[in-house]
């Protein structure tokens, strides 16, 4: 009994030890590109970095030597592509799904960078290897960092480019209640011989913000 009291006091304290908090905050904009048959062919991702991270990138590149907070056009041009040197296997923190099925997003291309009011804004395009038939299903774009070092928030309305006009894109916040249930269920089943790293539920995915694209039947 006594032991359980202490275990109950201790475990939440220590459960916190495994947690993390984000250090980079990114406002994300999402554009889904459709072909004339309303098939998804690419997504364009826009990242607007928080001011502290933007300042660090400026410091790293030795830009803005006079410290007036303004960048010359050639300095902005030098920024382009700074966040596009992805390591092998890095998923780019953007994920596409059709219903429950994961889709592959190609490597980033066609990128640019801007600087506005202390923030660096970049965009890049990621193509799907083959056009994806949405049909009666739902095409998802989720943004999250599985390690939760970076926090992604979707800002503004998602944009649909191309297509017949029958499709609709909406931004959705995470279903926190469902995600909490999933986490609790996973924790309840957790046993000591499990590999915490490999088996831990994808918290990032469950708590991610996402864009949903649906198309009315023709």
């Amino acid at each position: 009994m006594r032991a359980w009291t202490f275990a109950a006091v201790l475990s939440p304290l220590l459960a916190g030890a495994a947690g993390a908090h984000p250090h980079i905050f990114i406002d994300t904009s999402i554009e889904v590109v459709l072909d004339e048959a309303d098939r998804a062919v690419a997504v364009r991702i826009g990242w607007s970095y928080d001011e502290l991270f933007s300042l660090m990138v400026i410091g790293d590149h030795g830009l803005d030597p006079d410290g007036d907070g303004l960048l010359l056009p050639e300095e902005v041009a030098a920024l382009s592509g700074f966040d596009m040197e992805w390591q092998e296997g890095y998923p780019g923190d953007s994920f596409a799904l059709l219903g429950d099925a994961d889709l592959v997003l190609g490597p980033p291309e066609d990128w640019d960078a801007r600087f506005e009011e202390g923030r660096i804004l970049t965009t890049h395009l990621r193509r799907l290897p083959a056009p994806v038939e949405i049909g009666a299903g739902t095409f998802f774009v989720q943004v999250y960092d599985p390690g939760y070092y970076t926090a992604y928030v979707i800002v503004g309305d998602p944009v649909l480019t191309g297509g017949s006009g029958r499709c609709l894109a909406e931004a959705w916040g995470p279903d926190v209640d469902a995600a909490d249930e999933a986490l609790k269920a996973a924790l309840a089943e957790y046993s000591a011989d499990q590999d915490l790293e490999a088996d831990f539920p994808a918290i990032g995915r469950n708590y991610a913000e996402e864009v949903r694209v649906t198309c009315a039947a023709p």
Partner: protein
Amino acid sequence: MRRALSRSLGRWVVLAGVPVALVLGLIWLSGGFAGLLQAAEAAQRETQDMLARVIRALRAGQPGALMALLGVCFLYGVLHAVGPGHGKALIGAYGVARRVPVGRLSLLALVSSLAQAAVAVVLVYAGVAALGLTRTAAQGLADRVAPVIGNAMIAGLGLWLLWRGLRGLRRGRGQDHGHGHDHGHDHAPGEACGCGHAHGPSLAEVEALRGWRDTALLIGGIAMRPCSGALFLLILTWQFGIGAAGIAGAFAMGLGVAAVTAMVAVLAVWAREGTFAALGGGGLVARALPAVEALAGAVILGVALVLLMRAV
């Protein structure tokens, strides 16, 4: 009459520590603080942008910018400590495990937070300024290497508490047997008395040594995980030639973290004393103490090993 009343009131206040800590812990475990954490995250984001603005103001030489920086840094420390955190968990667990006075535990919280800031300063100035590492390399060092050392120290603390607790349990059992033949304390050689007053250092010396070891491991374990926010600040201010302000800011962050950790320290002591009061004091407490210590040590050790394996 009045004295008895106030004494029983005091007893109830002490007893209340257990349910308060339990309820808070369970709410946290069940994700009931998700809203609070979300609010903390939004506020973290705000302070992060504010931090960037005061650094720019400082760089531009605006008057009052240094005070603004210290204020924002303190706030940043408080907000980061509200989220799930490792130093807070350790201080809390240690406070439950050992019968540390609340003042000493709070002081420990303060010293370890400031030591954490000092480690960040040393890392940045040794790594970036002296060795010429890039920001990414220095961050990698802080994110990967330092926590391994820190977690190893925490595992050491857990092992230490576990060993002490188990020894205490064994000794307690030995004493129970001893009471059967009262005052039969005849110091047979090789008897597992464990009092240690004949050989080796005095009890007071051993206590002092244990306290010193615990403290060093605890402070080291917390300090070796420097906050990324402090590293960001230090590297930026060094790059912009306002390094002294950055160092002051890093310690202001440490003070902010300490403010929250000290509250956890108070809560942990409250819960522990409440439990002892509930057990009725006396012999039961004496027997419960080593069990609590061993259990807390085992939990700390387990978590540290998991973290260590993940970090390696």
